[in-house]
């Protein structure tokens, strides 16, 4: 069976006291799609993503991830997704291999499968020589690529990336996006937030959040046409400037 849409949100809302962080957003993401989730700092991107990952309980609305309900089936969702948070979150005091082994293990993978997968990923990242290096002594770019690979370790159908390329040099960012493309081509749905407009261009579809609401959602080409400009930057600035609230 195939879900045409692997992520759906319908009037999804998160309220903290009087503050509405995410205000009735609705969208649907197709399988294998790279869905860019843009917005200024404080627009509500991370909160929305955390609700979809089962880290934050929505206040109202509906949403499903991989066909599971975000209110009641979070543990099933968690088994089906990968997640890379804004903050680097591999264990710095474990080696590359040990991190993979740990995450593979808690997703319930067999030892043999973990070993094969680790070998495959080390080869992809050209990290064979560093497999017994403590993660803390790797350069940032490698750490980020490794974090993505670990998020993909148990071969989830959907992966959520929260500003995965923050602070990374352009070459590594390029390589990072090649990895994302490869994953999407293999059928993985990518849900990614970013502040880089060139990265927005790489997405199949982009939604731009302003003040907790989705202000625009289309393909990059469609958005540029709609706003009569040739750069995503202009589109983003036009929308983001309308924001009332600040971080």
């Amino acid at each position, binding site marked *: 069976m195939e879900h045409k849409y692997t992520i759906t949100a319908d009037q999804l809302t998160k309220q903290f006291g009087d503050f509405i962080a995410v205000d009735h957003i609705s969208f649907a993401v197709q399988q294998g799609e790279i869905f860019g989730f843009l917005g200024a700092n404080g627009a509500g991107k991370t909160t929305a993503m955390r609700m979809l990952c089962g880290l934050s309980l929505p206040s109202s609305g509906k949403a499903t991830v991989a066909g599971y309900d975000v209110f009641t089936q979070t543990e099933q969702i968690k088994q089906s997704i990968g997640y890379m948070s804004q903050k680097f979150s*591999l*264990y710095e005091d*474990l080696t590359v291999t040990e991190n993979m082994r740990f995450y593979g293990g808690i*997703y319930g993978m067999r030892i043999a499968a973990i070993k094969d997968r680790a070998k495959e990923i080390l080869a992809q990242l050209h990290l064979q020589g560093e497999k017994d290096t403590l993660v803390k002594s790797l350069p940032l770019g490698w750490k980020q690529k490794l974090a993505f690979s670990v998020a993909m370790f148990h071969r989830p159908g959907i992966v959520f990336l929260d500003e995965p390329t923050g602070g990374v040099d352009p070459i590594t960012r390029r390589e990072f996006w090649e990895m994302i493309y490869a994953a999407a081509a293999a059928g993985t749905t990518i849900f990614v937030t970013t502040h880089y407009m060139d990265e927005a261009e790489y997405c199949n579809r982009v939604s731009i959040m302003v003040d907790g609401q989705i202000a625009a959602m289309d393909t990059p080409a469609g958005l540029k046409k709609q706003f009569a400009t040739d750069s995503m930057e202009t589109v983003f600035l036009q929308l983001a400037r309308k924001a009332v609230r600040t971080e």
Partner: protein
Amino acid sequence: MRTIRFILEKEFRQVFRDPAILRMMFIMPIIQLVILPLTANYEVKNVQLAIVDHDKSTYTRQLIQKAAATGYFIIPGSFEAYADAMELVEHDKADIILEIPAGFERSLVKEDQAQVFMAVNAINGAKANIGAAYLNQLIREFNQDIRLRWIQIPRSGMQPTIQTEQRFWFNMHMNYQQFMVPGILVILLTMVGAFLSALNIVKEKEVGTIEQINVTPIKKHHFILGKLIPFWLMGLIVLTLGLTIARLVYGIVPAGNIAVIYAFSAVYLLAVLGLGLLVSTFAQTQQQAMLISFFLMMVFILLGGLYTSIDSMPDWAQWLTKFNPVTYFIEVMRMVVLKGSRLQDILPQLGKVAVFAVVLNAWAIFSYRKRA
């Protein structure tokens, strides 16, 4: 269960890679057990005794000599005026002033009674109290000696004197180390357990790895157990280390079965670790966790009956000590080490600590949220 294996593997790797934890585990117990018992002593020595002798007679000289000979008193000097001695007290250089009035010897011989005046510096309560008691006893003995010398041949009409012979059960020589070392070991185990576990989860929160854990399908109780077991084992290692030091350095060999100590410690550690885990679910930073743990430790230790006797606390405080796991462990340690109590003797304490363990851990699992 497979999940727990992976968590344990990770936790043990991290523990053995963290020099701070290893230091805390091994050096702290050694230092605390080797140094603290030597200082934690109720016996008061070196009481500074300032003497104002207005009589300057043979008797007063004898009294002063007797005081100096006990070894408890240091006599900084004789003073002509009370005010001079008082100045010493004000500078905290004297603990007790003994003022002997003029005509002391004469009135003692002629009228069969004499008065001396004792002024005690109560800044250091314990020292003042015990020092004064020593001096009182000394004067009483001195008095006794004189009476014996004057009334050479016992006659009818002589006041009978009652002599008390004391015997201290279970700690025959009133050896403070026998009494303190088991208590300090308890404190040590409590601190190591509570601090390590509290700081550990909070560290994952601070670094951000907890978020990555929360987004996995890991079960809450697996995660908590994975944290609990390594620290539980480490606690038992610290206990072993402590008992070894107690034996090698102080020659303290538990009168009871050592297995009883381990059995009780095993349950006790679960309670303490549960407390640490609970703290860590509430604290957001290691600083907060540290402060909360410190506060709890202070209360637990001061109300635990290590330094002060619970029986002499006010009623409300005695009632509070019932909610203090440290109290029970100190009790049990002393019972087993000094008195040789057996498992059936400590069952009430064991039961109570088991309740603590269940409640605290259940609470910790309950209040640990994977989803905010």
